[in-house]
């Protein structure tokens, strides 16, 4: 898949709302008094892999971290505007964070399996979100675990040591596990914050391949520093600079005929 071709045509005419997974309007965000996002209007299509690129500090990770509202952990973050995930404004006061995070899973830069066994890591989210998880028999639980691990191509490597600590796995395996543990609650969106930056080239390739496999079933928004990765592992691309969206187009278009000079300069490595 290394040089994947994207056969589909991406018409960038205004998409139908039903095709959208994430829609943000006039999204502004401040860390204390520092404004990190400026009027971000973005429409992320369902079932696609969308790459977020831009130099350090451009707000791409910040944007990603607003979609599941994990930014709010910091306590000094203020957000205005609207964020709709699958048609629902997640900033509305009646929205439960737990529900947002069930719908929107997140993979972090550094693999962060919980200090539990592999099995417990995979079933962790399911136990939180599914009230009937308590009543499941061991077999039913194991089926869920197996299905999730198969989906991330990890089952064959770990099936004999499901009860050993997840932190003992290699980084590549840990990152796959971190993806696997999101799947049992059937999220619609997966956010990935530079998911391969802690991995070696082989691990990167394996995880990229996995992400590619997951497209269609999940909407994937992936932040990356790596131009080559954005080019081969995403279908659409968003270029951000200083907290603003500069360009949003199909990956092929962005890398072949970027519309703005800033995008062209960044892609060619003149800064960033």
């Amino acid at each position, binding site marked *: 898949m290394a040089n994947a071709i994207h056969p589909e045509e991406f018409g960038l005419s205004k998409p139908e709302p039903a095709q959208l997974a994430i829609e943000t309007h006039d999204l502004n965000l401040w860390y204390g008094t520092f404004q990190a996002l400026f009027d971000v209007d973005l429409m992320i299509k369902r079932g696609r892999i969308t790459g977020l690129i831009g130099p350090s500090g451009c707000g791409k990770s910040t944007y990603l971290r607003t979609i599941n509202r*994990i930014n709010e952990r910091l*306590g000094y973050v203020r957000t205005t505007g609207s964020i709709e995930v699958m048609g629902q404004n997640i900033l509305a006061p009646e929205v439960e964070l737990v529900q947002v*995070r069930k719908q929107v899973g*997140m993979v972090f830069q550094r693999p962060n399996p*919980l200090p539990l066994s592999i099995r417990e890591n995979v079933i*962790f989210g399911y136990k*939180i979100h599914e009230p009937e998880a308590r009543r499941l028999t061991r077999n039913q639980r194991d089926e869920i675990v197996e299905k999730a691990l198969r989906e991330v191509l990890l089952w064959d490597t770990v099936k004999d040591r499901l009860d050993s600590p997840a*932190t003992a796995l290699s980084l590549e395996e840990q990152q796959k596990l971190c993806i696997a543990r999101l799947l049992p609650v059937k999220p619609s969106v997966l956010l990935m914050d530079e998911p391969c930056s802690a991995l070696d080239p082989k691990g990167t390739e394996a995880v990229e391949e996995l992400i590619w496999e997951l497209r269609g079933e999940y909407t994937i928004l992936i932040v990356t520093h790596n131009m080559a990765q954005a080019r081969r592992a995403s279908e659409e691309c968003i270029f951000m600079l200083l907290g603003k969206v500069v360009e949003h187009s199909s990956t092929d278009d962005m890398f072949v005929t970027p519309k703005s000079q800033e995008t062209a300069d960044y892609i060619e490595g003149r800064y960033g």
Partner: protein
Amino acid sequence: MRASPADQTILDRRNLDWYIDKVVQVLVFVGGISAIIFIIGIFVFITREGIGFIFSSWDPIEFFTSPRWAPTSSHNPTYGALALILGTASVTGLAMIVAVPFSLGAAIYIGEFASGKTRESLKVLVELLAAIPSVVWGFIGLSILNPLIIQWFNVPIGLNVLNAGVILGLMAAPIMTTIAEDALKAVPDTYREAAEAMGAARWQVIFKVVLPAAKPGLLAAVLLGVGRGFGETMAVLMASGHSINIPTSIFDSVRALTATIAAELGETAHGSDHYQALFVLGIFLFLITFLINLTADLVVRGIRNR
């Protein structure tokens, strides 16, 4: 390649800084090793004072199984430490029942919920509590808790296991809180972030992720509290009633190992059997606290090596 004489003088210049560096190295080494030397010195001293008794007239069966501690009896002095050991153990046990929930609760609140100024002032407050002299705690047991226990439970005497246990528990709680909070702080924030990103609520993050991850550190905090309980003297002496008893209820007065040494050592003739027997109690206490601290240390090391 051979260095020319000129090069050698450049490379081998022992100036003032070089000597200061050496002196500081030696000072730091002496400072570092002195604690170990003192501990060994103390152990050697205690052992030397008690060893003669152990080899001449010490009866280990009597020591561990007889509750009769009567070293001053003129015709038949006996040295049974069972009641003293049980006295110390019962007071320490009750103290842990009091201290563990308080200190873990405080540590969880300070470490996971409080933030900013609340957190800082609570930490200072807890450290201040840890600095209250034990005689003050003993005084509180004697003059406040004693009448309260008599009144509430309608018992003849308020200086007992309950009193000493509560006092000792309150005494040990601050230091246990500090250590437990350190253990919680050592849990990487990425674990909390990961669990929250999966939708876990605050209490789920704490109970399912943070506490299990911090378990060795929390256990070490409890063990250090136990060590503190075994070694505490003054407060226990004042609050426990100081009468030789095998406790059958928390309203029985007891006597602790430490308190026995403190109360009797001044009145014995240097080198007498009684004097030496008290040092045997000392050796026993030293070994127990040493073992408890060693266990705590190994447990904490266990987390680091995982």
